[in-house]
């Protein structure tokens, strides 16, 4: 994530986009979506028609007159009559009532069971969670239609009963969704902080947990309503709904019997069912977009993808020969910019120039947002696709990196430019053994056979100080420690004998004792193979340990660049002096607490039991 998090101090930091902020904003976003508006209008229309059914037709939906069977449209019967002479328009209106009430029963029952159980199981975990999850799994394994048939056979035809039973069967869906969102939010530190602040469980639930649970539940409800209408219509079509009640499924069933005499009859209930179910499902999708929820709680803002290839544009003339005779990497006037939502561009690197010679370790130091990682990633060609980079010059060992095709860049990366990332664990694929991840680049870049690559990988693992190379070779990433994983990545980075090594905060995620060993290793390998190294870091201790030269970055610019000895002894730029002044290394220890005796007073905590809840 260092690519985005280093993008600049002014930009909004990637925050946990938990869906709750500004519910009003969500409604506005929903109403700006035309699909959502159409779906809402349809659903409201259906609900209003169902409510006003007695006013809209004087016909009874259930009274059959055999004499008027299959009457055409017009007159007393605007949509005609069905096979037993019931008015189609009245049936549609009253059928809407049945459908909506039925689906509301389903949602009410499943919410009533699933929501509290899910919240409790997710928040308390433990035994209740185990039992509730077991019951949920059991319910999910039951074949819904068969259970419904059994229940209806036992208790007689009743749409309401069928829908209530279906609500129970579908409740595990709600339960699981709620439980997983509660578990996710429970892990957040702000919930711990609320507990420490003395909030009751009920209050934590209301203030911190429910706002996160509500958006996915609302979306789920919208989908459930659609599903319930389909299931209900299915049961009624089979003739299992309540007798003497108009319903869309019942209409379909009747229309089917008269499909040759009057095919038009099929149209109305089919349209009603399809349109209503589609409206619920489209509304659900629109809600998901408006609430910014995609199943789980998203942690990072979405990256926008564009088709622009990540090539570096030429920003000026290329001088024929490098200025420094043994220059390995030359950057001149590197700029990196990102498009903003407003359509403008925000530049995060403003013309960085630097040179790395063979065998030289360059430290690129700065605070977050200084553009140091952006610079390193631009050299690697690993910036996100929407980034626009340009430079007056950008050469690696004489090769112009600007406008290099992705394939040509791939041949350089790994083979001649090695990379050590910050987070060792997230840079190893958990589904492959360490051995296969180490040997693959060697076979690809160096054309080694499987056995040759294996021998070489074992040598490398031994070289980076792994005690039992054969065991680690056969292990999966989760089976080794973070320090080991970083050694593996270093072994991988140097496996193809690169000329340049780019290390992005390679020890930030490691313990200090492990850091020291890893830095020892980098220093030894660098000296042994005469590699050029670009070391991105925020830690002046690390710089002092391994770097020959240092470039200090701030706000996308290099403010000072000097040999390490000189930079530490005699910093020129005010910012460098401020940074070096902020290191705590040489500040005096705070010393013992004044007043010697240490515990001069008796501290009696407030009586815990008196006075009821505070």
């Amino acid at each position, binding site marked *: 994530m260092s690519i985005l998090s280093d993008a600049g*101090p002014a930009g909004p*930091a990637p925050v*946990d*986009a*938990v869906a709750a*902020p500004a519910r009003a904003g969500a409604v506005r976003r929903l109403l700006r979506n035309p699909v959502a508006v159409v779906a809402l209008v349809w659903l409201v229309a259906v609900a209003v028609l169902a409510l006003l059914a007695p006013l809209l037709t004087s016909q009874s939906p259930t009274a059959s007159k055999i004499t008027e069977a299959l009457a055409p449209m017009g007159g007393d019967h605007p949509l005609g009559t069905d096979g037993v002479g019931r008015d189609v328009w009245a049936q549609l209106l009253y059928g809407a009532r049945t459908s909506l009430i039925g689906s509301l029963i389903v949602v009410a029952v499943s919410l009533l069971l699933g929501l509290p159980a899910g919240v409790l199981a997710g928040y308390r975990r433990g035994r209740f969670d185990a039992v509730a999850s077991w019951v949920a799994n059991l319910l999910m394994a039951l074949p819904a239609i068969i259970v419904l048939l059994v229940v209806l056979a036992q208790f007689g035809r009743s749409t309401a009963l069928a829908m209530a039973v279906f609500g129970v069967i579908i409740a595990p869906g709600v339960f699981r969704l709620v439980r997983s969102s509660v578990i996710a939010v429970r892990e*957040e*530190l*702000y919930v*711990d*902080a*609320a*507990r*420490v*602040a*003395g*909030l009751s469980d009920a209050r934590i639930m209301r*203030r*911190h947990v429910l706002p996160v649970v509500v958006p996915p539940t609302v979306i789920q409800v919208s989908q459930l309503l659609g599903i319930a209408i389909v299931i209900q219509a299915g049961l009624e079509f089979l003739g299992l709904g309540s007798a003497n009640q108009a319903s869309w499924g019942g209409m379909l069933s009747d229309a089917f019997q008269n499909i040759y005499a009057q095919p038009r009859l099929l149209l109305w209930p089919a349209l009603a069912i399809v349109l209503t179910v589609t409206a619920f499902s489209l509304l659900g999708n629109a809600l998901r977009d408006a609430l910014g929820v995609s199943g789980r709680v998203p942690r990072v803002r979405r990256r926008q993808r564009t088709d622009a290839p990540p090539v570096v544009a030429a920003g000026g003339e290329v001088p024929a020969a490098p200025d420094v005779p043994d220059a390995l990497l030359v950057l001149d006037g590197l700029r990196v910019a990102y498009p903003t939502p407003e359509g403008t561009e925000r530049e995060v690197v403003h013309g960085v120039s630097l040179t790395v010679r063979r065998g030289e370790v360059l430290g690129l130091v700065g605070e*977050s947002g200084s553009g140091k990682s952006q610079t390193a990633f631009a050299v690697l060609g690993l910036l996100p696709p929407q980034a626009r980079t340009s430079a007056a010059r950008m050469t690696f060992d004489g090769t112009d990196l600007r406008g290099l095709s992705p394939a040509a860049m791939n041949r350089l990366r790994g083979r001649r430019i090695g990379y050590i990332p910050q987070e060792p664990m997230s840079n190893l694929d958990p589904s492959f053994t360490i051995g296969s991840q180490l040997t693959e680049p060697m076979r690809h870049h160096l054309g080694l056979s499987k056995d040759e690559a294996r021998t070489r990988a074992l040598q490398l693992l031994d070289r980076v100080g792994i005690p039992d190379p054969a065991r680690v070779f056969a292990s999966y990433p989760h089976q080794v420690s*973070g320090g080991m994983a970083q050694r593996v990545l270093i072994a991988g980075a140097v496996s193809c004998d690169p000329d340049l090594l780019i290390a992005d905060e390679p020890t930030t995620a490691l*313990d*200090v004792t492990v*850091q*020291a060993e890893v*830095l*020892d290793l980098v220093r030894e390998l660098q000296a042994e193979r005469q590699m050029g190294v670009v070391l991105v870091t*925020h*830690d*002046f*201790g690390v710089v*002092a340990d391994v770097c020959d030269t240092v470039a200090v970055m701030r706000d996308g610019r290099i403010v000072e660049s000097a040999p*390490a*000895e000189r930079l*530490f002894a005699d910093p020129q730029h005010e910012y460098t002096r401020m*940074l070096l002044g*902020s*290191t*705590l*290394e040489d500040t005096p*220890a*705070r*010393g*013992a*607490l004044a007043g010697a*005796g*240490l*515990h*001069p*007073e*008796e*501290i*009696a*905590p*407030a*009586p*815990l039991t008196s*006075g009821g*809840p*505070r």
Partner: protein
Amino acid sequence: MSAQPMSAESTSTVSAPLLTVDRLVVDYPVTGWRRPPVRVLKGISLEIGAGETLGLVGESGSGKTTLGRAILGLAPVTGGEIRLGGRVVSNLGRRERRALSRDVQVVFQDPYTSLNPAMTVGDILTEPLLVTGSSRSDAQRRVRELLDQVHLPADAVSRLPREFSGGQRQRIAIARALTRDPKLVVCDEPVSALDLSTQARVLDLFIEIQERTGVAYLFVTHDLSVVRHISHRVAVMYRGELVETGDAAAVTTAPDHPYTRRLLLAAPVPDPRRQAERRAERHRFAAAQAAG
């Protein structure tokens, strides 16, 4: 609200430390049928006096964070005792634990997940006050005071956490910890996620607040230079045990225990020449350890 808050200005002469941790053992259950639990703390004993900072240093997995969480009531106590001013507070019921929230507070490491992204700074800060029955206007007055104490502008109340930088968020978290004048704040790596220059300023804020209010800190960190800057005394943890406790200057310059020594020698000095010396010394020390 019948109980009197503890007073740091109390003149009582009986000498009892503010916090006593006595042979504390914490086990974490391991998922899986009949798997034995993992022992994270193996009998920790320490004391913190009123107004004192005890720095707790250790590497990942040493149990330092678990110790903080046990004191906060967020980790299960398997054995031993935690006493606050002489009263046992380990394994309290939920309700008694809540009553304790006045005296013991927390600042977490990650300023991004420790503040609810959906609540305004004002809501975050008034919440601990409103649950204890303060009126809304009292709470708002107190919040203005707190924001001033942590050097944030008063208009921060109506803004969301995401509008603030890491250092500013940590100031908000500090303000939240201070709302009810606690006696002890457990600080779990509160400056590790911050930039160097921000780190120094936030540490100074911690010291400034301590000198004014007499609050005590348990300051958990992996960084010896940070701990040296803020602590009166330092305790070093290694694999669930305290290996060394003592005066901050002594522990961070001339440690007794080989592990502390290793820790100290591994921390790089921001000066190439001195770092080269320290590195050489570390190699000599490692060789000696390996030989002996």
